[in-house]
């Protein structure tokens, strides 16, 4: 697991948050330096730092620096040219964007209108609008060739004005970057909200919306919010009416499993125009730790449910994918649906996996799930790997 933020030591404290793209090139043209943060190589002198927004030192801090200067913490050793970081006055270092990451997400708030029993990132009530402001300010630093950026929370739509501002900046500054927003969709029950988003006309925008059961009270129980099901369904209808793209996200656990097949049939019948459905393995973190008794079960107990879910939706022409489920715990028929979805910063594998012949093709594990799975996973032999690849090939058009 890779850490993304933490306190740092600094010489010259910034009086406000400094955002910038990292460069190790001490001879960066002076005209660019105000938007760059120098990540120092050996032998950097005080004059080299001149003009940079800030500088990050690998060695002891130079107390004579006039440029804001922080010491690179151990956890951030992975930082490289092109990454984007923020240095706050506290002082702390936040990694906003990593060039080499498989996915990058902007956490815009920890506040949420739902309180899901399996939430991996339990909501807080405090005012954290600085997160949104940071995300909004960071867009101008993002590289134009970024393939995808996620917007996550909390519930990003709660602060709707800031959400629109963020989306507008994404559209104007990095229009070729796909944007994926994780939202409970409840506020889209107001047609004017869906309309306002649609009016921005972002060219590549998808909303990931959770739907856990076709039975309103079961869904409402899982998200711990009365009326959430109705709002989410209306939100989806409004979104599609406004031409927004929707990915339905279903988390598989003991509370959603009993009506999983019913949910697939419900989606196929009433929401066949959604753009994708994702069935996701449980993350063993956050509320799951406290609610383990009512949530947890081994993935292998769900084999036939997963098969039924994928078959029902696929045969209705709905693109269906599996997230957070290692291949060796899935029935063969759904292997082609498995995706590598876990951000690299929270992806780890237990020791057995190093002997597995399809390790690089597997969705792997959340770092916090490794202990759960290490008893059940099984490395694939070379022969099994060939079989695996032949099944994937058979499904290709």
């Amino acid at each position, binding site marked *: 697991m890779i850490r993304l933020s933490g306190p740092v030591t600094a010489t010259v404290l910034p009086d406000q948050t400094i955002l910038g793209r990292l460069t190790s090139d001490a001879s960066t043209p002076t005209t660019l330096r105000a938007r760059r943060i120098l990540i120092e190589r050996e032998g950097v002198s005080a004059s080299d730092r001149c003009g940079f927004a800030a500088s990050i030192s690998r060695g002891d801090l130079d107390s004579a620096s006039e440029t804001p200067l922080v010491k690179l913490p151990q956890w951030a050793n992975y930082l490289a040219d092109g990454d984007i970081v923020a240095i706050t006055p506290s002082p702390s270092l936040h990694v906003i964007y990593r060039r080499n990451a498989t996915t990058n997400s902007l956490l815009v708030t920890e506040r949420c209108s739902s309180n899901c029993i399996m939430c991996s990132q339990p909501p807080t009530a405090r005012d954290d609008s600085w997160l949104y402001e940071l995300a909004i300010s960071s867009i101008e630093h993002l590289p134009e060739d970024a393939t995808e950026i996620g917007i996550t929370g909390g519930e990003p739509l709660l602060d709707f004005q800031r959400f629109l501002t963020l989306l507008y900046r994404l559209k104007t500054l990095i229009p070729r970057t796909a944007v994926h927003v994780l939202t409970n969709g409840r506020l889209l029950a107001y047609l004017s909200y869906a309309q306002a988003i649609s009016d921005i006309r972002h060219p590549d925008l998808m909303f990931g919306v959770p739907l856990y*059961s*076709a*039975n*309103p*009270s*079961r869904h409402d129980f899982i998200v711990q919010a009365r009326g959430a*099901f*109705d*709002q989410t*369904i*209306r939100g989806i*209808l409004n979104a599609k009416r406004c031409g927004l793209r929707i990915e339905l996200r279903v988390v598989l656990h003991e509370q959603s499993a*009993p*009506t999983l097949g*019913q*949910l697939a*049939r*419900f989606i*196929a*019948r*009433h929401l*066949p125009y959604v753009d994708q459905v994702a069935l996701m393995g449980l993350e063993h973190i956050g509320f799951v730790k406290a609610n383990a008794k009512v949530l947890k079960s081994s993935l292998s107990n769900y084999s036939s449910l997963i098969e039924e879910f994928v*078959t*029902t939706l696929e*045969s*209705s022409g709905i693109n269906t994918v599996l997230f957070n489920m290692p291949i060796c715990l899935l029935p063969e028929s759904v292997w082609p649906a498995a995706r590598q979805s876990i951000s690299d910063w929270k992806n780890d594998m237990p020791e057995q996996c190093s002997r597995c012949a399809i390790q690089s093709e597997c969705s792997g594990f959340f770092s916090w799930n490794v202990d759960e799975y290490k008893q059940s996973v099984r490395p694939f032999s070379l022969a099994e790997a060939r079989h695996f690849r032949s099944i994937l090939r058979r499904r290709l058009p």
Partner: protein
Amino acid sequence: MPFSFTRLPSQPMDATGKAVLVNQAGEHIILRMSDVTRLITREAPLDPTLMERLHAGLFVTHNPRSSGVDLVAQSVRSKLSTLMSGTELHLFVATLRCDHSCPYCQVSRVSDDRTAYDMTIEDASAGLDIMFASPSKCLKLEVQGGEPLLNYPLVHELVRAARKRAREEGRPLECVVTTNLANITPEMCMFFRDHDVLLSTSIDGPSDLHNANRPRPGNDAFQRAVAGIELVRNICGVDSVSALPTTTRRSLGRVREIVDTYVGLGFSGVFLRPLSPFGFAVKTQSAIGYDTQDFIDHYLEGLDYCLELWKRGYQFREHYASLLLRRMLTPFDTGYVDLMSPAGAGSAVLVFNYDGDVYISDEARMLAETGEKLFRLGTIRGSTREHLLAKPQFAHWIRDSMNEAIPGCDWCAFRTWCGTDQVYHHATQGDIVGIRSLSSFCQRNMAVFNWLVQKLDADDDDSRILRAWGGLG
């Protein structure tokens, strides 16, 4: 939420018997009558698992402003959207002349009189103007007869002009020619290939049955049709020709042979359809007709046999059941104009007869051949589309074909999946609405729906095969 229910036949009439519940979203569920009573009277609680199924199926809701109402509204809106989209199917009767003299045929004549029974190029061209004036996104041109290839120059010109115009306007166009294939030539096939024309033909069953049904000089209708299918497949491609059987009294008891004939000819399915009560078929009813129940038995035996074949590894389906299943199991429209509510006649299909008269359906022009021209909208000559459809009766026909408001349909559980046919009920009962308990249209469809819901309810091979026919799995 609103639903209708019907007791399933061959079930005890007490509380242990089963009923099927269907709602406006097209969802269905089979329950014991005791549970239906509980659900309606709310006197006793239902099993929680059952309640979850009822919620998911939009049969119940926890509050009157729930999103379930929006989802049902969405289904109703999609179902009615065909009314807004404009006529898609346009039938051109190229000629009434035919080289076959089938006793059940509604309209055709054996004649050499081209001036009396052929459509003229001018009328065909006027028909195209009306067709291309339709707001429908997709257009479908079907050439009918008589035997249209006896008037091949017109078919050639009609298809050529339609294709050209569709290309110019950038509109998708499907072309179908319905023919007995007796007189098809390689040159015609090459033209059809180059203009993406599909061919639809008739095969009534094995050679003796087909030839008895379809007399022609030489008594070789079957041999000619089979040779024609071969020719079309070789030149236009295997998927370019389809076939339909007509069921006469001679067919009864021979449904397995009929199905086997289709299997043997390499078709992936068969559409088992009854005789139409129109035109000459009414007059010859006594000679070739049969009771509705005879047809139902014949049809269901055919379905069973198709399922049996599927289990033995032949992926062969019955098309009428398949399209009903698609309606029952999926939210998608089948585009089948003969079973719609409001009826497809006029709204989804228009027919241009050989003499330039315009009718609301194929059955309507067949009825006209017996002298009843009620469903004639006008003539092609000098008419615009708006002019034809502005006929006041037309709105009434549409209004009276909405099964939500038809006595006998209004309470029927199968209403959401079913359709209506004003022309059929006018022809058989002298009234466009008609009395359902006297209607074989109703009797037949009820029987098939009843059979299908019960088969689907059993969690077995048959149920899985039927789901596959409906497009699931």
